[in-house]
């Protein structure tokens, strides 16, 4: 069943006086439980595509449906709420709140969702254990390695029980070993808990683990292949 459906997405920027076609008619369906990598050279439109699918940017034309909701029709405040309850984000630079502990970083998403303390406590623990940080819950980001911080970011992305997780170059700042470890965690979450992951990446390790690889070039899908992992 399709969870994300984009229809003829275009995005045109004006850089000074020059029009840049970042996306040029992208139509894509992503089904539940997919583990998909969006790849392509720099400037191919990967990040723009992820931003639009994540509701962080608007397309110049075309539609994005998440489940039954066309998010291009949503108002600003509705979109913020929609993101909170439906989309998880993992960023290249982790982007944790440095003044909060690992536990609090994961928990605050649920606080914004107004979840009860009991529910928050059990979910935070469950997630941090799942990413292998059950014993690091009270550490602040500066006391953790890059890999650990990115694992907290994954736990945070899952805290709201989103429909899918968008991960923008999640392994770009990590060494190979840590990157593989993180990918294993995400692959397990995908397999065992059925969480849909979409990555934008250059990293071959991510590409090797993805079951579907969508390649963008000049804002167009030039290939869309599935692979057995």
């Amino acid at each position, binding site marked *: 069943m399709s969870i994300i459906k984009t229809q003829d997405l275009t995005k045109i920027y004006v850089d000074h006086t020059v029009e840049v076609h970042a996306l040029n008619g992208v139509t894509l369906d992503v089904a539940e439980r997919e583990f998909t990598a969006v790849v392509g050279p720099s400037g191919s439109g990967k990040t723009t595509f992820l931003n639009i699918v994540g509701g962080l940017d608007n397309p110049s034309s075309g539609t994005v449906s998440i489940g039954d909701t066309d998010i291009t029709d949503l108002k600003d*405040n509705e979109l913020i*709420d929609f993101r909170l*309850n439906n989309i998880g984000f993992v*960023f290249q630079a982790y982007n944790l709140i*440095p003044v*909060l502990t690992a536990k*609090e970083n994961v*928990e605050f998403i649920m*606080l914004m969702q107004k979840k009860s303390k009991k529910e928050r406590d059990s979910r935070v623990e469950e997630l941090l254990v799942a990413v292998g940080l059950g014993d690091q819950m009270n550490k602040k980001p500066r006391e953790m390695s890059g890999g650990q911080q990115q694992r907290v970011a994954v736990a945070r992305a899952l805290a709201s029980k989103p429909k899918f997780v968008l991960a923008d170059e999640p392994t770009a700042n990590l060494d190979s070993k840590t990157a593989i470890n993180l990918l294993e965690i995400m692959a397990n979450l995908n397999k065992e808990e059925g969480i849909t992951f979409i990555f934008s990446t250059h990293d071959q390790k991510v590409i090797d683990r993805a079951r579907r690889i969508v390649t963008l070039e000049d804002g167009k899908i030039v290939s869309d292949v599935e692979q057995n992992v």
Partner: protein
Amino acid sequence: MILKISWRNVWRNKLRSGVVMTSIALGIWAGLAVMGLSVGLNDQRIDSSIKNTLSHIQIHHPEFLSDNNVAFYIENSKDISEFIAQSNTVAGFTNRMKINGMVASSAGGYGVNISGIQPESEKTVTELYTKIIDGKYFQDIKRNPVVISQRLAKKLKVKIRSKIVLTFQNDNGDIVAGAFRIAGIYKTVSSRYDDVNVFVDIEDVQKLLGGLGKIHEIAILLTNMDAVNPFKEELRGNYPDLTIRSWDEISPELGYANELMGTAILIFIGIIMLALAFGIINTMLMAVLERKRELGMLMSVGMNRLKVFTMIVVETIFLALMGGPLGLAFGYFTIQYFGTNGIDLSIVGEGMESFGVGMIVYTSMEAAKYAEVGIMVIITAILSSIYPAYKALKLNPAEAVRAI
């Protein structure tokens, strides 16, 4: 959670937050210190005027004030005195004769205000008797004693027991003169006052004017300032034919000085708050720009604009709430300390005397003013946080999460 994040963000860059808190504290301290000094100066000036000459309330014949003719006496002074004596808000009162005249010695002559006073009851109203620096207050001179200022004594080249002549017009406009001997030399904090005021026994003047019991002025000192207006109105109700004025009506420039001081303080506090506002805006703007990625993440994952805005405002309020009480406490202790021990401004003594206050100034401040300043700081902090918070709202989350 917003409170927690804001609170911890305050301590994220301890040096920067410390600088802001210190500048808030210093700003408030400086503001309070200047306010305390200004209020103290003004209070002392008013107090000195009231205790040296004005008293709280004065009563005159209505035409005496416009004409200054010695013939305009208060007619029913005995009744009035009895009425005043009955009031429990009255600390003291005295009768005076007030005459414009000349004082002359062999060294020269000067125009002066001659006050015929009741030496004993005058003590209950003014502090002239405490200002005697040479000789005695209406003592040791049996006939026609006079008390003059040190400045006048220098100009007249006279000393204790020297003879001077006072000349003035009587009720008919005829010139009368009397020889007086200096019993005491006084010095107040006001050089302008000292230059023109001489004091004689009221009975000696009355004899020269040919009418014992006649008076021009009743001066009343009350137990407290709050009683002035009610008692003045009571007197006005009872004696509608007389002119009854309170200290600020007698000497409106004192009231104006009060207003002027109030305005000056307001401007000064405004400047401090403005400087404070720019300090806070600068710091919070830096904080917002430094945390672009974090703010971008918060907005990306679903923190709404109101919460982002609130987070920045609350962080600023925390800064103000920590710097503010510190400044208020420093200000309070400074005002208390110098309120007790005084600030020695003898370096500008001449100027202070012409302003009508002593060389030691005692700072003073109403308790309510501390609260006012505290509230102003909080309001300044909130207003100052609006622009940085607005800048945070204007961040594009998609770009901000990738900011370097």
